[in-house]
């Protein structure tokens, strides 16, 4: 089935695709979004069921290889130190995300100029600033302005989430050492907001939010976009971005739920399928004009994959605080004491700390970021030491781009439609290793200063590939980048990439507000400069 042309076809309805769909629809563009997953029903999320921890380990697991749902595609991660994580549904990985929402720093866009590594971005923090604000407003940000580690920012739409006694204890630990910390910005409602409920502190927001208090794009941007006329076509898995004789994008071919092939034509195409799904699709989209995949004359599609390697340090406390599992998992405290390069250290660039809470009983036993509780003799004692009494500091390291870290098409593994799966090649660099070790040592100091009687470190979380970046990087030079600063492909002037793939460097913070700000800015560019794409 072929479907008549729309102005813009957006592939993927996650953080970036949904934001762009809304912005473009405000300007009257006719839009179809193709999404391989389906709508979620918040009242059916795991937390609504007694077996929520089993669901978290199986049908709602972060790793698509463990979930293995028909809408997931397998990711060959056997050559990677880190397993990529994602969710495939309307809302994309924001269904799963923790919604911890710091911004990139101005320095993150200028690492070559400042520190002589990697490359500068073609855009700056201040180019994105108003889009960060716009996004905070639409996604619903709880937080408080005044953080000394960041440029001044506008008042947050909602007050911060409470730190809880466990968060306050860690805050005092940072204070004792004279180190920076600040209440996290979070896209979680601390009060009712835009028709969505306030958070009720249930805890595992990585499993979808029953209350719709967490800003996932299925409950933020998309309902508004749909009111503006956007069509979200679900269970539609794109396998090729198609081109005309001149090599310009003219739509995409996809399979529906029954495996029947369709084509949707469009005047412009936006790819928003995340840092793994996007290069996969671009590499699949070979044609005479684009023999190595669409918009890949630089050979950089799929290259420079970055993750943010995480180390996790758990502190065990024995004072009778209320339990450390009450409250949103990772939306408490951020510290950026060690964010920037310091010539006295044996690594370049830096890291953030993000405090994490503990979890429910089963996850405590199976090990949240550390080994499972030991079995046999001593089991119950070790469980008791952990349960409700442990807090974590995650070390989020800046990951610098390296071409050897990459996404390719797997020769053997295919998804449920027979489309080649991505294969990920990724090794943690020596710089990152040293950086993580530094982060672990200092995290231990914070936790002990906060009163922990013992700490335990996981030097690098393998199941920590939450942040997918770099695989279709932006830049001014078509030989060294895939898209320009407006996210427009150098080789194909009506093709745009707007997800984390376009990142030049990774920063040392969770990336999604920056992804969404970039997507909104690209949409604004299209509204302003690409009226030729409007029918």
């Amino acid at each position, binding site marked *: 089935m072929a479907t008549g042309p729309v102005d813009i076809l957006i592939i993927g309805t996650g953080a970036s695709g949904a934001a762009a769909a809304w912005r473009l629809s405000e300007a009257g563009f006719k839009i179809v979004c193709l999404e391989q997953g389906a709508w979620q029903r918040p009242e059916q*999320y795991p*937390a*609504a069921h*007694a*077996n929520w*921890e*089993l669901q978290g*380990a*199986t049908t709602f697991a972060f790793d698509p290889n*463990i979930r*293995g749902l028909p809408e997931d595609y397998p990711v060959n991660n056997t050559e990677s130190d880190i397993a990529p994580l994602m969710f495939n549904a309307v809302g994309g990985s924001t269904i799963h995300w923790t919604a911890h929402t710091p911004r990139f*720093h*101005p*320095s993150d*866009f*200028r690492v070559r*100029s400042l520190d002589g590594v990697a490359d500068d971005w073609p855009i*700056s923090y*201040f180019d994105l600033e108003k889009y960060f604000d716009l996004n905070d407003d639409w996604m619903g940000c709880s937080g*408080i302005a*005044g953080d*000394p*580690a*960041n*440029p001044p920012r506008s008042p947050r739409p909602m*007050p911060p*989430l*409470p*730190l*809880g006694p466990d968060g*306050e204890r860690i805050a*005092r630990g940072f*204070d004792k050492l004279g180190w*920076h910390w600040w209440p996290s910005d979070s896209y979680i409602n*601390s009060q009712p907001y835009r028709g969505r409920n*306030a*958070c*009720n502190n*249930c*805890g*595992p927001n990585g499993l979808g939010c*029953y*209350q719709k208090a967490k800003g996932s794009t299925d409950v933020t941007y998309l309902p508004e976009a749909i009111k503006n006329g956007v069509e979200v076509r679900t269970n539609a898995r794109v396998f090729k971005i198609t081109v005309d004789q001149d090599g310009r994008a003219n739509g995409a071919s996809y399979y529906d739920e029954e495996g029947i092939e369709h084509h949707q034509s469009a005047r412009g195409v936006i790819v928003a399928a995340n840092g793994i799904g996007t290069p996969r699709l671009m590499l699949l989209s070979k044609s005479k004009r684009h023999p190595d995949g669409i918009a890949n004359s630089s050979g950089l599609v799929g290259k420079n994959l970055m993750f943010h390697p995480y180390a996790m340090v758990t502190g065990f406390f024995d004072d009778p605080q209320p339990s450390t599992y009450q*409250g949103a998992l990772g939306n408490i405290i951020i510290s950026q004491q060690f*964010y*920037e390069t310091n010539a006295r250290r044996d690594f370049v660039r830096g890291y953030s700390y993000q405090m994490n809470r503990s979890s*429910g*009983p*089963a996850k405590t036993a*199976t090990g949240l970021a550390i080994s*499972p509780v030991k*079995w*046999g*003799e001593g*089991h*119950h004692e070790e*469980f*008791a030491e952990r*349960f*409700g009494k442990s807090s974590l500091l995650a070390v989020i390291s800046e990951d610098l781009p390296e071409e050897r870290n990459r996404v390719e098409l797997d020769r053997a593994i295919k998804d449920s439609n027979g489309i080649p799966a991505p294969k990920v090649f990724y090794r943690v660099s020596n710089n990152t290793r040293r950086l993580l070790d530094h982060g672990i040592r200092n995290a231990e100091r914070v936790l002990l200063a906060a009163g922990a009687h013992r700490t335990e470190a996981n030097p690098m979380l393998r199941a920590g590939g939450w942040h997918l970046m770099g695989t279709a990087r932006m830049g001014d030079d078509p030989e060294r980048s895939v898209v320009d600063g407006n996210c427009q492909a150098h080789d194909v002037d009506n093709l745009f990439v707007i997800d984390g793939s376009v990142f030049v460097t990774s920063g040392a913070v969770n990336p999604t507000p920056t992804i969404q700000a970039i997507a909104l800015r690209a949409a604004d560019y299209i509204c302003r400069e690409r009226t030729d794409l409007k029918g």
Partner: protein
Amino acid sequence: MPTKQGALTDSDRRNMRVVMDRLIPPVDDLPGAGTMGLLDEIERIASEHDRYRKSLVRFLDALTMDMSVEAEGGFLALSGEQQDEAIREIEESLSKEFANVLEVVYISYYSRPEVHARIGWRTGPLQPLGFTLPPFDESILDTVRKREPFWRQAPD
């Protein structure tokens, strides 16, 4: 030995119950995980999730095929310490499968209301009740607010 489809024989079930008691022993007034009667639930979960099913089959295969265990008259005839030893050997040789078996046993055990009652966890779904969300208390910022801005300027 389980069938290829993963159906456990009576002897597998007897072995598995004892294994589960070794993994999570009795505590206070609670029996071990095997005696608690979790095996039906574990078999049900395994039947729905291949990862657990395959691992359970391989684990039980390994347990019944272990020559030293056989020589002693089977797993059930071993002393508690010897049983732990046999389990530990499989943990080393089939680490991935063992990890999956341990995971499904832990998840089943720690999903039980009687276990929740002992450890002080409110049982049942987390929602719609959740927990109380108190307001943010700004006084905690007193110290950090004294700090001058220190973010790094960058060229435009």
